């Protein structure tokens, strides 16, 4: 069943076309990766799907309804939640507080009820604390839940970013370069984490640079180059695609799978 | 409370401790009686000069009397002590400052404040605490019944304008007139009043829409318009002593040949510094400071003011009167007026003294019946001056109708 479909998505900056007529779909329960060389337009595409940028043309549909043009928070309410690269967390909160506050979409109390600490608001908070503790434990952050985020070791921050996103109960999780800058050991853990997320019933769309990890976990891969889609298919099919090889050619630091 | 906390205060914040230590009022020797007079006004920030001139003037007068052993009221000599409060031209601080003077310090008479905004804020406090105050602000409601505790310390612009413009029309053949006003409440009001006067006198108003921000640094753009219309007279409504000379210089540099007029007091030193060779031809109001008409007492006041403030300021020529007439009225009303303003108010109507600042024999009284329906203004002689060769010269002498 199709969860997300991207139809002819285009984004221009001045005369430059960053994303050019890209279309693909994501099915419920799969892990789909978008890959491409540096500057291929991955980040722009990512922002377009998360509604952090308006498209110049084309549209994004989620469960059959158009979501492009909505504000990011509205898209999140529909069930599309993104993560950020690197260390985007609420730095002056503890890990637990980070994840508790991220449950905002689950609030059942009215604004006034929240203000006056009504029974519903207190129940919300209890629920969020339990849920946040569970998410942190699940992602292996249970032992640092009371550490302020700015004091957390670098390696934990990306996991915390994912924990924040999970707290918003996404149907589709957009992961922005979840493996960037990791050594093989860290990558292994991260790969396991992403697979774990899928097991929780969350569909995953990830944009990535690191081919190795992508080949291991993706059900399908979309390759873009210079803003356009040049290939789509299973990891094996993509790896064999001459156009993909061409796009990555001459880049010494890139290896296509293994 | 002060004693108990002194230690911790010293430990905590040195500056505050210093203040606490210094806050013990300077104690006048026990055998002498002290008469404490307040002064409330803006003494820091952009308008600092307005209140500081009041303060220095009051201090100068007080010192002059104290050197003579004090001021005699009902057979007793009183040393005069000036209690100054800075309101930073902030109505919130004026209100608490007035409470401080009339409440905590128990002072019944004070000089200031300096603007409509602050003076009208003081009114409820002064009336509640039964105090008389001498504002340098023109708002009519301060001096018109039911208000009766404020006494205007100078001549209002709307009193100067009719006489000044008429004299200029008759003596200098002024036919066309242009206005440029400070863009604040005082400036716009004074301009509107000036325009009315000019219309009554049948002068042709070439322009009255030019204004400038009080924070301006360059008058070139402001004056260009008006000068191109070449009126016989440019009125600088509510121009501060800091600004009038700049406007004159710019207008002259732009080729202006006519005269300037300003209903507020100016300062010749600033005019000479700022306008230099272009400083001639300004008609303004000048108190008793032109050399031809000064009495020796005025010379003494100027010398004392210079000692207190570091340098003379011509604005003080109009501000010399407040404390002098206040003391003389107290003497006339008797010692009980020191703590009760009722006898003071009763003495106002019939009060008269020789004007100590003028060479010529003339009387100093309270006036204002014409404008306010009661005598709530010091009858400062209206000395209209003209700048000529780097000095104020007397252009015309008049007075406010009683």
């Amino acid at each position: 069943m199709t969860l997300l479909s991207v139809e002819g998505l285009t984004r221009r900056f001045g005369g430059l076309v960053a994303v050019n007529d890209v279309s693909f779909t994501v099915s419920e329960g799969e892990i789909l990766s978008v890959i491409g060389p540096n500057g291929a337009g991955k980040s722009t595409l990512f922002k377009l799907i998360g509604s952090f940028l308006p498209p110049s043309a084309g549209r994004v549909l989620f469960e059959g309804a158009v979501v492009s043009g909505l504000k990011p928070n509205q898209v999140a309410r529909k069930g599309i939640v993104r993560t950020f690269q690197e260390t985007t967390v609420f730095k002056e909160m503890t890990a637990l507080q980070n994840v508790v506050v991220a449950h905002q979409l689950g609030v059942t109390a009215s604004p006034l009820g929240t203000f006056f600490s009504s029974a519903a608001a207190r129940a919300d908070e209890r629920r969020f604390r339990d849920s946040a503790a569970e998410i942190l434990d699940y992602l292996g952050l249970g032992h640092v839940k009371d550490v302020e985020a700015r004091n957390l070791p670098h390696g934990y921050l990306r996991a915390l970013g994912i924990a924040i996103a999970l707290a918003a109960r996404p149907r589709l999780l957009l992961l922005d370069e979840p493996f960037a800058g990791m050594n093989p050991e860290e990558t292994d853990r991260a790969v396991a984490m992403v697979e774990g997320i899928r097991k929780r019933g969350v569909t995953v769309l990830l944009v990535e640079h690191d081919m190795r990890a992508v080949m291991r976990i993706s059900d399908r891969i979309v390759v873009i180059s210079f803003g356009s889609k040049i290939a789509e298919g299973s990891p094996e099919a993509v790896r064999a695609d001459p156009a993909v090889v061409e796009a990555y050619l001459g880049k010494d630091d890139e290896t296509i799978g293994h | 409370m002060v004693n108990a906390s002194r230690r911790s205060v010293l430990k905590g914040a040195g500056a505050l401790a210093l203040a606490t230590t210094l806050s013990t009022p300077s104690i006048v020797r026990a055998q002498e009686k002290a008469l404490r007079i307040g002064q409330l006004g803006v003494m820091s920030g952009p308008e600092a000069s307005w209140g500081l001139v009041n303060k220095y003037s009051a201090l100068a007068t007080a010192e002059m009397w104290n050197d003579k052993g004090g001021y005699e009221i009902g057979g007793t000599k009183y040393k005069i002590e000036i209690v100054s409060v800075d309101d930073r031209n902030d109505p919130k601080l004026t209100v608490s400052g007035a409470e401080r003077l009339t409440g905590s310090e128990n002072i019944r008479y004070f000089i200031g404040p300096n603007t409509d905004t602050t003076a009208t804020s003081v009114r409820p406090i002064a009336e509640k605490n039964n105090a008389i105050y001498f504002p340098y602000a023109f708002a009519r409601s301060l001096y018109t019944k039911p208000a009766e505790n404020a006494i205007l310390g100078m001549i209002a612009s709307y009193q100067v304008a009719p006489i000044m413009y008429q004299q200029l029309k008759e003596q200098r053949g002024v036919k066309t007139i242009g206005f440029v006003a400070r863009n604040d409440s005082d400036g716009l009001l004074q301009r509107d009043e000036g325009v009315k006067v000019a219309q009554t006198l049948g002068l042709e108003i070439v322009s009255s829409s030019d204004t400038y921000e009080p924070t301006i640094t360059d008058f070139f753009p402001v004056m260009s318009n008006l000068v191109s219309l070449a009126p016989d007279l440019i009125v600088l409504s509510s121009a501060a002593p800091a600004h009038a000379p700049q406007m004159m210089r710019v207008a002259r540099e732009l080729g202006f040949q006519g005269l300037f007029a300003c209903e507020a007091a100016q300062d010749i030193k600033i005019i000479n510094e700022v306008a230099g060779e272009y400083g001639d031809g300004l008609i303004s109001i000048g108190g008793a400071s032109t050399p031809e008409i000064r009495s020796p007492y005025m010379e003494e006041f100027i010398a004392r003011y210079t000692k207190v403030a570091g340098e003379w300021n011509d604005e003080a020529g109009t501000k010399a009167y407040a404390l002098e007439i206040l003391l003389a009225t107290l003497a006339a009303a008797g010692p009980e007026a020191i703590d009760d303003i009722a006898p003071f108010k009763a003495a106002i109507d019939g009060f008269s003294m020789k004007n100590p600042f003028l060479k010529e024999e003339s009387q100093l009284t309270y006036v204002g019946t014409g404008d306010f329906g009661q005598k709530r203004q010091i009858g400062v002689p209206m000395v209209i001056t003209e700048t000529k060769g780097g000095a104020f010269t007397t252009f015309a002498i008049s007075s406010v109708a009683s």
Partner: protein
Amino acid sequence: MAASLDAIAGRAPERMGGVSRVLLTLLPLAAVLYGLIPVLFAGQPYWLNVMTNGAVLSFASLGVWLTFAIGRVNIAQGAFALLGGYVTALLSTLYGVSFWLCLPASALVAALVGAAIGWPLLRLRGIYFAMVTLSLTEAMRLAFLNAPGLGGGGILNIPRPAGLDTPLAFYLFAATLLLAGYLLVWRLATSRIGWVFRSMRQNEELALSIGIDVARYRVVAFAICSAMGGVAGGCFASLQQNIYPASYTVSDSINFMLYCFLGGLDFVLGPIVGTFGLVIAFELLRSIQEYQALLYGILMIVVMLFLPNGVISLFPLLVRRFGRGAS
């Protein structure tokens, strides 16, 4: 001890019951406002007036603190105080509306204008927002100065509020207002709404990504802030019985911001401590006359040099140093 300090600092521990937390937070402030200050100054209208100023200014600063909480440096509070002052002045002098109705009207108008202006402006961040709000203060002053029908802009003879004839009565009213404002902001800051504000301050995009309607929360915070400024302006207009375009200028707006900084941005009590600290310090420094303003500036720098996170940040420091030794 530590618990009550936490409460004082607006960070009541969450494990406590709701009612006792409210009490613990409010009681110390209420004790000072209703107990200490009236007992010390009951017979001294001057000090009562200073305390009234402190209370009403604190109320407005609490609003500014709220905009700090969402990560915006707000230098527009003077504009809203001016607006609120004019609303009260016009309603009471033209239509004879009672002070007790003027005040909510001031709040409402200021909130509506705040929301209307804030909606687009709050997209700006950092010094751009700071500077644009500073411009707003100037624009508001100039607008009233040039408003047709106001003739130079001043409104005089605003009636004094019925029932608040004595300085003590007005002070007690101001104290109650402040206490209510404190309760409001403290509840906002400690409830989930406060956490949402904090998340927006720390990272607006991340807050958006988890479904927080950042734009709406920003406008709500700014509107509440503006309403508080409007109420303060209405109070001062009645206290001084007049309002002029120059009653609130850029320096007032800057002062509101300074009070928050000085007290400490991390504490709801910060703006109150900062306001009273500076207002009282200025009055105490009066006796040194011409150096008053100079020392006032030095004092500010000294606080910043040694307590850059505000005066209240001293308490956690002390607790850490001495509390540990004791327990």
